[in-house]
């Protein structure tokens, strides 16, 4: 009886297994065929309806950090898909979601700002991301440091750079060179008096010879810039008075524009070019 049943079941089972293989082969072939169709999508349509992290965090049922990881992983793939032309339109929004879900997750602040500056050329978005990083992680000096670097190198906004570097300096653990970057930002924004005082302070407090030398070179540069400006101003006055440029800087003393000529920090005379009216140092401040 049992044997009969088995014999009866055998071909049917084989038939069923064959059917399974055929249907599997069919759906795999159809899958390949269906994948070949290019389906149009709205650019950025996958993200424009993502709610703010403030609301999203309540929907994660306590898995906020995991949700932040998932959105971050997705964001990395999304922003490296070059075919999405307007992928940067909601950059700050996306990274704000990650930051809101997990404010102590450090990588998204740095990577988001990097994408904003290097790929999206959107420095405002970079500042927004880094400001959030600094607000959520007041113990991390890297965010105001990065913001200062962007302000200095990309935006050329030296007062903003000074503000960020100052913020960075006040965070415990910030490297010493940040103070020098701030002093340089002050110099570049044109506040030569404060720049001199700042570099002098760095020189006096320098913990090693290397730092002392760097500060000394900058002090040399600041003094040279102040002196060159005064000399060039006097050259312009001389030209106005006599209708011709002075033959040499000594003529400025003769004309009563200077009591004595200033010298560079090393006691050397400045070099004057009568053709252009420009004054410069004998050597580069960085090769002293």
């Amino acid at each position, binding site marked *: 009886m049992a044997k009969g049943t088995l014999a009866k*079941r055998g071909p*049917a*089972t084989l038939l*069923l*297994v064959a*059917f*399974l293989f055929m*249907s*599997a082969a*069919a*759906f*795999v072939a*159809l*899958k*390949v*065929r*269906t*994948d070949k*169709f*290019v*389906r*149009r*999508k*709205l650019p950025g*349509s996958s993200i424009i309806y993502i709610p703010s992290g403030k609301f999203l965090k309540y929907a994660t049922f306590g898995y906020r950090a995991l949700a932040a990881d998932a959105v971050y992983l997705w964001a990395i*793939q999304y922003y490296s898909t070059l075919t999405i032309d307007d992928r940067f339109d909601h950059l700050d929004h996306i990274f704000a979601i990650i930051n809101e879900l997990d404010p102590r997750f450090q990588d998204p602040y740095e990577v988001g700002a990097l994408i904003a500056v290097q790929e999206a050329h959107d420095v405002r978005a970079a500042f927004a991301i880094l400001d959030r990083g600094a607000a959520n992680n007041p113990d991390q000096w890297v965010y105001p440091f990065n913001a200062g670097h962007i302000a200095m190198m990309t935006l050329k906004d030296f007062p903003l750079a000074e503000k960020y570097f100052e913020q960075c300096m006040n965070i415990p653990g910030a490297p010493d060179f940040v103070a020098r970057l701030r002093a340089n930002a002050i110099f570049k924004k044109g506040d030569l008096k404060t720049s001199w005082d700042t570099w002098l302070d760095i020189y006096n407090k320098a913990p090693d010879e290397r730092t002392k030398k760097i500060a000394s070179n900058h002090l040399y540069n600041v003094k040279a810039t102040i002196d060159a400006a005064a000399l060039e101003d006097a050259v312009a006055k001389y030209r106005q008075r006599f209708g011709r440029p002075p033959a040499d800087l000594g003529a400025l003393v003769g004309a009563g524009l200077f009591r004595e000529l200033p010298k560079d920090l090393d006691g050397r005379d400045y070099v004057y070019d009568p053709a252009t009216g420009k004054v410069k140092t004998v050597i580069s401040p960085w090769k002293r």
Partner: protein
Amino acid sequence: MKIGAIAGITFKEAKRDRILYLLFFFAALGIVASRVLAILTVGDRIKIIKDVGLASISVFGVLMAILIGTGLVYKEIDKKTIFTLLSKPLHRAEFILGKFLGLVLTLFVMTLGMSLIFLAIVYAHTLKVEGALFVAVGYIFLELVLITAVAILFSSFSTPILSSLFALAFYLIGHLSWGLELILKKMAPGPGKSLVRALYMVLPDLENFNFKTEVVHGLPIPPGIYLSSFLYGVCYTAFILGLAVLVFRRRDFI
């Protein structure tokens, strides 16, 4: 004929299930609530109505397929009515197919009901019947048919709770498996990539039935994909049903 009889009984049994009406009520509530959500938006209200409406049909349809489908075969075994049925000249394959078709018929009626409410709401706003919405609803129904087959497969060897979890996992995998394509593009050639490719081919791709975005935004859909997606759904369903029959044939109820 026997399949038809089983399907008819399954349909009658399913329509007595209160959970069906509860889910239908919430689906209808979701569709109607889309009007309220539309009021809160600035801009294209009809887009919100279409999005929420289609999502309600899809989500509650899947819940119906899973919650009813996973109990269908199990109940017969648990209540021992399976002995009466199988003592008749009835093949186990006919039993499975009958159960499947009965639930598909139930889901068809429910989807039709939800779609009518949805289309009525859309009509009240646009004063026109949009044919493209039928496409989206049609493929949602095709997805429900596949989920029904999956629910019956798990129901044929597992408890309703586990079957529901498995079927839900199948649904989630089906909507996330496209991510494997992304991983494949970034993987170096090797056994790992071959394994991921095999997985990508075998795992269900329920995005093939998802035309909601295109329909709502009026984007062009390549004509060939309709037939291809339809056949994909039919073949995958056939495969799952074949598997269900194979498992059920080997089950010993004593």
